[in-house]
């Protein structure tokens, strides 16, 4: 089984880090999609199926919080696991995102090892 993964971050550097780590971890990948904000991600998710979403919070147009809320309100998208990777370390934000329905919350800077561990946890149970 090969997975489809969506990476949502306005930073090219952040997206590249995640994509490269997935490659290094030898996760069986079918497609790695990238979006620069929540709106691009929601548009893409109308057309393609993904097994896992990595998302930043602080992004232009639709931010990560709003994107997750919209995904959770749609029958087709509500069960897709979302992992937040954000620079925001506030306890209140983490609680807000848990409430919105994210599966994990990692704070930047993350290491490739942290990311590998979380990917293995979610894709093994997918």
């Amino acid at each position, binding site marked *: 089984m090969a997975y489809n993964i969506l990476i949502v971050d306005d930073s090219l550097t952040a997206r590249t880090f995640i994509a*490269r780590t997935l490659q*290094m*971890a*030898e996760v069986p990948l079918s497609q790695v999609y990238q979006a620069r904000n929540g709106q691009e991600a929601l548009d893409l998710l109308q057309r393609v199926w993904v097994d896992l979403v990595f998302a930043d919070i602080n992004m232009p147009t639709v931010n990560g919080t709003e994107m997750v809320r919209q995904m959770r309100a749609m029958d087709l998208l509500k069960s897709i696991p979302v992992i937040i990777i954000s620079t925001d370390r506030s306890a209140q934000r983490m609680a807000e995102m848990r409430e919105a329905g994210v599966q994990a919350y990692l704070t930047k800077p993350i290491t*490739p090892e942290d990311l*590998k561990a979380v990917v293995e946890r979610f894709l093994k149970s997918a």
Partner: protein
Amino acid sequence: MASKRRLKTVVVGIGGMAISDSPDESLVAHSLGSCLGVTFYDPVLKVGGMAHCMLPLSRIDKEKAKAKPGLFVDIGVPKLIEAMLRRGCRKKNLVARVAGAARVMDRANFFRIGERNHAVFRKIMWKNGLFIRAEDIGGDQARTLRLEIETGRVVVQSEGREREL
């Protein structure tokens, strides 16, 4: 279950590097303070390598860098990887474990040598597309790092305690 027989110890001193495929050997780096002890192990070929690096960047002393590259993380670790590949190891099989990078003798941590050694090591791993399997890093205690060639088992001793990495 670890083998009970006595292993021959190959000591890897400061700035030293060693590679072994002898099942009766273990590679050991003693008294790692802010130094970084790096091990790579190929479980397919049962080849292990160790480096005992003292400083992050070689450009501070070009002569020493030439004479003893293992002193510096930025050139010592790539040399160790290269040497293991020459032995026939495949990069994707290399299991990396690392210990040290403590704040020994620099309690105010003014020079951040341990952290810098670790940062440069992580850069080399990233550039080579390798993950760090396990590490025991930081704090203010000295450590001894041991790699057993037959099993690939890595053990860190510190303050009278021993734990497997």
